């Protein structure tokens, strides 16, 4: 829950949508502003927030919020 809330704040900031609400299944196809350019900015903001780095292979797996939460939890264990 905590990671999801943090992600929500990051997404709101990067995508410039103040009232955005994320759930586990939210994916790029649900949010118009989540395009490939925004994706890079989101990835960097997440890396900075959690002081982690995603590998190139992992980046393609970040398809929805649940994927993101899983990968982040594994990295910050």
């Amino acid at each position, binding site marked *: 829950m905590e990671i999801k809330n943090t992600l929500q704040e990051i997404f709101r900031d*990067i995508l410039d949508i103040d009232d955005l609400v994320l759930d586990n299944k939210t994916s790029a196809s649900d949010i118009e502003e989540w395009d*490939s350019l925004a994706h*890079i900015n989101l990835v*960097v903001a997440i890396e900075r927030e959690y002081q982690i780095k995603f590998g190139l292979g992992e980046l393609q797996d970040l398809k929805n919020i649940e994927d993101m939460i899983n990968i982040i939890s594994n990295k910050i264990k």
Partner: protein
Amino acid sequence: MKDEVLNIIYQKLPMQEKKINLLFKEFPQMELDLEEFLSNYKKFMELENISIEDIANAYLDMLEQVFFCRKEFIYTGKYYIENQNIAFENIYNNEKVMTNYMLALALSQFLWKHHYQIFNYYKSIVQNFTNSSNILEVGSGHGLFLLEILKQNENLNDIDVVDISKSSIRMTQNILKTMKSDYLSKISFYNYDINLYNTDKKYDFITMGEVLEHVNDPLSILKSLFILLNHDGELFITTCANCPAIDHVYLFNNIEEVRSLIKQAGFRIKSELIAPSTNKSEKYLEKNKVDISYAALLTK
């Protein structure tokens, strides 16, 4: 052919499907232009033994590189390489890498909004030259810009191409060879750095697409072109701000910096096009350092 290429791209990068479908909706002609480009390139691809998978993979590789370079750029505020010689050794001088890169860039003319808009702006400029008899292109790259001049101006037969990359020249020659038999005979190719290109000739029209961001000293290039341009000639340039790529070395932080360089070299801006890669507010573009393509028609 278009669907085959796109399906390979979508399979590997599903996010591209959403982006490209939105673009085709916004610019219905884009889809048709993509198909036409691929069918025009077909003979060239056969000649060079390039398959549909190869062109799709070249594009996917470029996206991965752009992703990597953009990430670095957001972290550091700088481009990944800072010396043009490194780009020359790693890319322009490497036959295989250069061919793939040019294929991917050619495809991007029909899959990236800002590239497509710039290309259309260029097409409108080179339609039926009335006052130009000789033409210089600096950096022919994937050959698409040169091809457009040839297609629109059947009577032109004094065209010079100066390119620092042998691979790029070879690729352009092969593309032209497979398009129309007399195209090659109209063009002289010179494998030079434009600053070292020595001629007494003055050109009526010079075109230089995406070169300024590839060199350490773009002002010196513009000054060289100033000398090469006729007193009433026109120079068409394109470049970009905040556009990290594996071979971009000179960072324009905004379009005003490009304009300032143009004026410093002595040119006047006759018309221009500013094309951000995404439809977002000014605030968003600045905050996220979104890449912006720029094209301008310049006079003395």
